[in-house]
Structure formats: structure tokens, C-alpha cells
């Protein structure tokens, strides 16, 4: 052990980050034209950003409390449905070709989605998860049960059929840059995703709250011994993560232009792949993993549509062979 003079400088692990451009460049020779590649890359990044929003809460909750919430997907679907109710009620201002009118519908929809998903998260933490702390088996079972029940309740409240959800006028359509058609909505998704990531990064690295969260992910007991109630912290993170998943749900529903009760469950599979790739509990890993998965899905979706999800499983296996605990392994094993 070295003590005395200089320590080795803390090296940020750039390698996993380099995977993102590496995958994008590796896809380039296979895709016939540059504009198509640009379109696909933007689509992949947009998809990745949305996945990141949905997954961020899941990974933080796991890191902080060692809880894997298999029902996290319901926050996505509940958010999507809540927003749909608001947007369909405000149809007129959705269809108006004015940004202000569109925003007047979208802002309340997003707020409703986040509020409802956050509230559901709070309820879930209190009623479903709290009694099974420390017992992984029961956690998985109980949260699966929660998933079933909420999915069924969605059917009761919103009906079993798929609800079409047209995008507001101002963010429909696409524009051309250098021959590449880029959908406006995708650009919006990338911007929102970046904003969310930046906000999370700032909170985690520049505030006392973030310091507490990062410390809690490493060593819960020690944070308690320093006089902080980790429970309170955890409930807050859980609610925020659920609300974020709700936001992701709205974005995803508008992207798909429809909602159905299964989206939560369908997304869970993708979220798990992202978490495993990124390293359980790591927010940075979650971000990188989400972008990788989004890009991969779009390139292979174009080249060999049948293999889209399969390619991500392959990506996951390769990452695990390279780094068995994910790209950015987190403290506790």
C-alpha cells in the first residue's frame, strides 16, 4: 500500500463511454447511406434517453436500499395513462398549431403523470415493499404481485383497449438536415433526456442531498451512524424515481402514439437489460447502458428487424463477459 507522496490520480473510467461512439461508428459501414445513419442515430439516442428516464429510479432505488422493484414498470404505464387522460381532454389545444396551446396541454399532462406515478410510488413503498426489506425472494414475488394488480386496475379504470394518442401539432413531423430526415419529437426526447441527466448529475455531485445519496449507495449503515435517517432519504428517492418513470411513460406513449397496459411490463425487460449492462445501482452506467440499448435497437431494427431485441441480449451477454458486474460496478457486491 502506498502512503506518503502522491496518490495515483483518480482515473475516470472512459472505456465504457467510448462504447457509444464505437457502436455508432461500427454500424456506419452496414448502413447504405449517411443520412439514413444520421436518422437512425438520432432515433437511437432519443430512445435511449427515454429508457434512461424510466430506468434511473430503478437503479438508484436498488443502489440505495438493495431493492429490485419488479413493479417499476407500472409507474411507466400509470404515467402514460394519466397523461393520456389529460391530453385527450384537451384535444383542442393539442391540435392547435401553436406552441403555446400545445404546451398548455402538455405541461399539465406531464405534471399529472409525474404526480400520479410519484404518489403510486409512495404508496408502493409504504404498503408493498416496506414489509419485505432485506428479503430478496419476497421482494421479487411481492412486487410481481403488485405489477399484476396495478395492471388489472389500469384495465378497470381505463379499459382494456389500446388508446391512440396523437402527438401535438408542433412536435409532429420532421425536418431535413443534410439529406437526413430528423423527427422533431426525437430531438425533443433527446433534449428532455439530457436535461434530466444533467439535473440528476448536478444533484448527485453538487448538492448535499446528492452526497448523502452517493454515500448511502455505498454504505447505508454508516450514513445512519453519521446521524442521517436513510429511510426518509430513500422514500424521497423512491418517489422521485417513480415520478421520473412516469415522465418516461408520457414520452414513450407520445413516441408510440398509443398506450396500453402492457407497456410497463414490456419496458421492464429492456430496463433490466440496461441495468445489467450499466451495473446495478450506477446512474452513469444506466445512462450509458440506455443509450447503447437505444442505438443497438435502432440499427439492428433497420438492418435485421427480427433481431432487434435479440441484439440487446447479445450486447448484455458480451458486456457481462467483459465485465461480469456491468460497465460501472457499484460498491457492494
Amino acid at each position: 500500500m502506498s502512503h506518503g507522496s502522491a496518490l495515483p490520480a483518480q482515473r475516470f473510467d472512459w472505456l465504457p463511454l467510448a462504447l457509444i461512439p464505437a457502436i455508432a461508428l461500427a454500424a456506419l459501414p452496414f448502413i447504405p447511406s449517411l443520412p439514413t445513419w444520421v436518422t437512425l442515430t438520432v432515433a437511437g439516442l432519443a430512445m435511449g434517453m427515454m429508457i434512461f428516464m424510466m430506468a434511473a429510479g430503478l437503479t438508484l432505488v436498488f443502489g440505495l436500499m438493495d431493492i429490485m422493484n419488479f413493479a417499476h414498470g407500472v409507474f411507466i404505464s400509470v404515467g402514460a395513462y394519466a397523461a393520456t387522460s389529460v391530453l385527450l381532454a384537451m384535444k383542442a389545444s393539442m391540435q392547435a398549431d401553436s406552441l403555446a396551446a400545445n404546451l398548455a396541454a402538455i405541461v399539465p399532462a406531464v405534471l399529472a403523470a409525474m404526480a400520479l406515478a410519484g404518489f403510486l410510488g409512495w404508496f408502493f413503498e409504504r404498503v408493498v415493499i416496506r414489509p419485505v426489506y432485506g428479503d430478496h425472494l419476497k421482494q421479487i414475488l411481492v412486487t410481481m404481485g403488485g405489477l399484476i394488480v396495478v395492471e388489472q386496475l389500469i384495465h378497470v379504470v381505463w379499459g382494456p383497449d389500446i388508446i391512440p394518442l396523437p402527438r401535438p401539432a408542433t412536435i409532429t413531423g420532421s425536418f431535413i438536415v443534410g439529406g437526413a430526415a430528423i423527427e422533431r419529437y426525437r430531438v425533443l426526447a433527446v433534449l428532455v433526456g439530457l436535461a434530466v441527466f444533467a439535473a440528476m448529475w448536478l444533484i448527485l455531485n453538487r448538492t448535499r442531498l446528492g452526497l448523502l445519496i452517493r454515500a448511502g449507495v455505498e454504505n447505508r449503515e454508516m450514513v445512519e451512524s453519521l446521524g442521517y435517517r436513510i429511510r426518509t432519504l430513500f422514500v424521497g428517492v423512491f418517489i422521485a424515481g417513480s415520478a421520473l418513470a412516469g415522465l418516461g411513460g408520457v414520452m414513450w406513449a407520445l413516441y408510440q402514439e398509443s398506450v396500453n397496459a402492457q407497456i410497463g411490463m414490456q419496458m421492464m425487460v429492456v430496463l433490466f437489460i440496461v441495468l445489467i449492462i450499466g451495473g446495478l445501482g450506477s446512474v452513469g452506467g444506466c445512462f450509458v447502458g440506455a443509450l447503447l440499448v437505444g442505438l443497438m435497437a435502432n440499427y439492428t431494427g433497420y438492418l435485421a428487424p427480427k433481431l432487434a431485441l435479440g441484439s440487446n441480449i447479445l450486447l448484455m451477454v458480451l458486456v457481462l463477459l467483459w465485465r461480469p458486474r456491468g460497465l460501472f460496478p457499484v460498491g457492494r457486491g
Partner: protein
Amino acid sequence: MFTTLLSGDFPRSRVLAVVLVAILAGLVLAPFVFPGTRSLNVAAKVAVFVLLVASYDLLLGYTGIVSFAHTMFFGIGGYGVGIAMAKLGAGWGNLALGSALALALSAALATAIGLLSLRVRAIFFAMITLAVASFFQILASQLSGFTGGEDGITYKLPELLLPGTKLVETPFLGVELSGRLANYYLVVFAALACFLALLRVVNSPFGRVLLSIRENEFRSEALGYRTVTYRTAANCIGALGATLAGVLYAIWLRYTGPDTTLSFNIMIDILLMVVIGGMGTLYGAAVGATIFVIAQNYLQDLMALASAAAKGVPLLPGLLHPDRWLLWLGVLFIVCVYYFPTGIVGRLREK
């Protein structure tokens, strides 16, 4: 003789013993007591799911690992039979070949998944199996040349097992002795034999090591058991059980498709059955599967009545709508995990 058959694992509760005998008698006598097509379908499904759920309980109850890939193995069995029958022709040899290939594929996959992820932790395994299973689901729907895609495949079986075949000219106890009956008894007795074999596994020294690993992984490791090896072996045996269940179901239905084998809904059904019946005892799987399959088929009728009765009350008709039966089983499931972790069988045995 009973001791040998049951591997010394007796029901240890009078009520449970009666229930088990009733299930067995119901299955064996079903063609004669409940002769309708629907009830025979229900009975065959019960037999298959008893095996499927029992093999899952080997993982969940005895080994303490949550897998979401059980329907994948179930599907491999189903598609093994289906593809062999549809592509190679309806002979006994092909039936055996299809089943054998399915079993080999399942064993290989289960070992690979086990070795890749069982050394880490329970949650990791659950997540990986979920991902792999959904990949398989997509694979099956994409390779439509082989699997028939979303529509699945229908096929013929060896002559003896087809409903059109008459085994004996004169009906017995008023029931025609057709190939359908032969098929039914093949499924029921094969499932029963596999169930008894699983009972043997869990009551062997191997089964006791699994239990001790579940109770205290660290200690078992210290005692010199290679926990990863044991868990992987359990994962393998469970997968083989599920594959056999898939083979039997494919034989019974003469159809294999995503909705009858690979669907995630079936995975959830299995979870519900094993938890409600009782984890950690194979009899729980038998009881859970029976109750669930019967509820699935008849609870909806009951709920339709209740829903109609509740007309006019806000929200209640929606909650009682026959399609919402899973809602109530989900609630029951959560209640079971919290308050009756040993399920129905555990409660019966406590008495």
C-alpha cells in the same frame, strides 16, 4: 409401498391427504365422472400444470431462486414436439426425437444461464432469466417458418392418440374409448410419474443440500458444498421438468403456440400457483395448480354473475368483471406472500 412411491414425504395432514387423494381420483376418473370436452381439457391442464408448477417449486421453494425462464423451458418442450410432428411426420420415433432434442436444449440452456448468473445473486438471476425468456418469446414469433409465428403450429399425432381413433368398439360405462382417452391417460400418468420423480429428488440428500443452501448460503459454502454447482443442477432439473410438462401439453393440445407455452402470462400463473399452493412443498404445487386452473375456468362464470348483480354501483362492476379475475388472484398472491408464506399446504400442515 407408499413410502417408496412418495419417497417418505407424506402429506402429514389429514385434510391435505384427503385433498390430494381427491385431486388424484378426480384426474383418473375425470373422463367418466365429468365427460364433457371442457372438463376433460381442464383436467388435462391440471395434470400438466401440477408437473410444471412442481418443477418450478424445486427452484423457488427448495432452492430459493426466482426464475422467469420457466415458460421458456415449457415452450421448448412444446415446440420440440410440435416442430417434430409438423416437419418430420406423426410417428412415435419422431415424437421421441422431438422430446429428446427439447430436453437436451433445455438442459444446455439451463446450465449456461445457471453458470453465467447464479454465482452473483438472486436478483441478478431473476433479471437475466426474464431477459432471456423474452428473447426466446421473440425468437419463436420471428422464426415463423419453424414455429408458425404468432399463430403457432397444429399437427397430427401418432394414430393411437388421435380422438378419431376407436380403441374398442363398445363404450365402457357409457364413455367411448377413443384415442382421446388414451391421450388423456398418457398425459395424466406421465405427469404423475414425473411428479413422483421430483418428489424423490427433493427428498434425496441432494434435496436436503438445496434446502440448507437456501437457509444459509454462507454456512453451506463453508461446509464444502459448491453452492453454484448445486443451484445450477437444481435449475437444470427444474428446466427438464418444465420441458416434460411442455411435451405433455403439446401432446394433449395437438397445438403449440406462444399463448399456450411461452407467454409471460403463464409465467405469472405459475408464480401464483406455487405461492398460493405453498412454496417449499411439492404438494403445494399440486394443490395450487388444481385450484388455479379450476378458478381460471370457472371463477369467471361466478364473477360474471357477481358483476351483473353489482350493476349500478360505481366501479364495482368493473372490478368484478370476469376479465378481472387475475386482479383478485393477484391480491390473494400478495396476501399469501406476506401472511401465509407457506401457502395453503403450509396452513394445513400446521393444524
